[in-house]
């Protein structure tokens, strides 16, 4: 059974690109093109990973992050920020709100995005008791 990934990204070309390579890796992928429907899907609680763009119509990425973190969904849902801003302050805020990692979109090829997704979805080795 593949892990479930939600991509919230307003640029269709980029959304399609990531969806294609991730589906090829055997992940189940859903998409949202703007913040509000993205948030609604997040709240369904059925995803393992959220690829979240920061600049989005209707509701931006940090707002979504704030709301899902309030609803207590975060420990189960891993969040990777998608950004092209490269502004340290925004990334820092994202981390403070519970994001695990971030991807600067222009700087990564699709295989590198897949590698990052695999990395964050690999459970950390349990601490020996």
């Amino acid at each position, binding site marked *: 059974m593949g892990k479930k990934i939600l991509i919230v990204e307003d*640029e269709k070309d*980029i959304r399609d690109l990531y969806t294609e390579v991730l589906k090829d890796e055997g992940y189940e992928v859903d998409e949202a093109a703007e913040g509000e429907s993205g948030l609604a899907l997040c709240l369904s609680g059925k995803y393992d990973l959220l690829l979240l763009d920061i600049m989005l119509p209707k509701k931006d990425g940090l707002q979504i992050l704030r709301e899902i973190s309030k609803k207590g969904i975060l420990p189960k849902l891993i969040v990777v920020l998608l950004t092209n*801003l490269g502004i340290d302050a925004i990334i820092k805020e994202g981390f403070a709100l519970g994001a695990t990692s971030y991807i600067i979109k*222009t*700087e990564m*090829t699709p295989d590198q995005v897949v590698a990052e997704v695999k990395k964050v979805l690999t459970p950390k080795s349990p601490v020996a008791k």
Partner: protein
Amino acid sequence: MVNSPQELDPVDLLKKTEAELKEREFQLSSINQEVYKKNLELLKEKRRLETILYNMAEAVFVLDANRNFTLFNNTAQKLLGYSEEQVIGKNCDDVFFLYGEKGARILALELIKLASDASAFVKLDFILEARYGKRTANINVSQIQISYEERLEYVVLIKDVTEEKMIAKLKDELIGIVSHELRTPMTAVRGYLWMMGSGRGGELSEKNKSYLARAVRGTERMIALISDILNASSLEQGRLDLKIEALNLKDLILEEVDELRARAEQRGLSLEVAELAGLPSVYGDKRRIIEVLANFVGNSIKYTEAGSVKVFGQAQGGFVKVMVTDTGKGFSAEDKDKLFKKFGRLDNSLVTVAEASGTGLGLYISKMLVEKMSGQVGAESQGVGKGATFWFRLPIAGTWK
């Protein structure tokens, strides 16, 4: 025969005295005229200087040792909203408020202390609040003493930079937005070129593969350029947070050299590291030092056709100097000054930005980064074709407990 002393007739004597008196009178009146003329000239000169002082573009006022106003020019009156009569003799802390970068109030005494610490001259940006609200002000304070007996006075010069700052901020925001808008389509271009190259859409002919490789190179250069413009712009705006800590340069150099080794080997170059043991720690921002190292070593690899690239470091007068020496293209003496400039193309050194497929901003950014970390950069070459050494130095960290 003896000559008797000449005796003058009393009438003659009177005439002579009269003539002398006339002569004196004439002299006196011409001295008087001269004094009058000089006075007039002085007055004119004083008026001229006052007119210049009172109407210059900068606000100027003078404070005595108790920080009370003794002079207040027209521009100061416009900027602060008070007439000279209203403020003369008043303490300047009662007339306007100054705030530092973090919003803390700064009293005139502190401003003057800053001025005297900087020996004669200090130039700083403050928020200035007077009758007309808050303005961003660039302030200069200089101490003056007309003669030994007289006490020190302080000449304060204020330039209203509110508009300049606003324009700089807008420019900064604009560059940020434009860069972001450029990056979005570039992400798609790069992503789909990669998809094509991965063979997902079917096998490519050799010819198409080589076309594709060129498109990928161009795309990557474009992306690097956008990112460098963004970086250079934040550096210029002073909008870059540095995390300064004591760092061991040896580890950073070894790490970065390992990262770049494959690239050097691909070009058939040897990449060596030497003389790093026992280097003292320096103060700097880890991420930024790595950026500078990557830029220097990367350049050396790029501009060297055959031979080697060596990295070594040494402690030298309070600094650790890191040198990157190559056997590459080098540069001419005339081009030395252009190296660290923005888009500094080298006319006399065969190497052009386009040829090297760089952004033309790498060394410029490196220089700014190192200087932000209180260090320096430099470069030497024996001439075109004779290799080059690029170096940077950073201050040695103090002893930590």
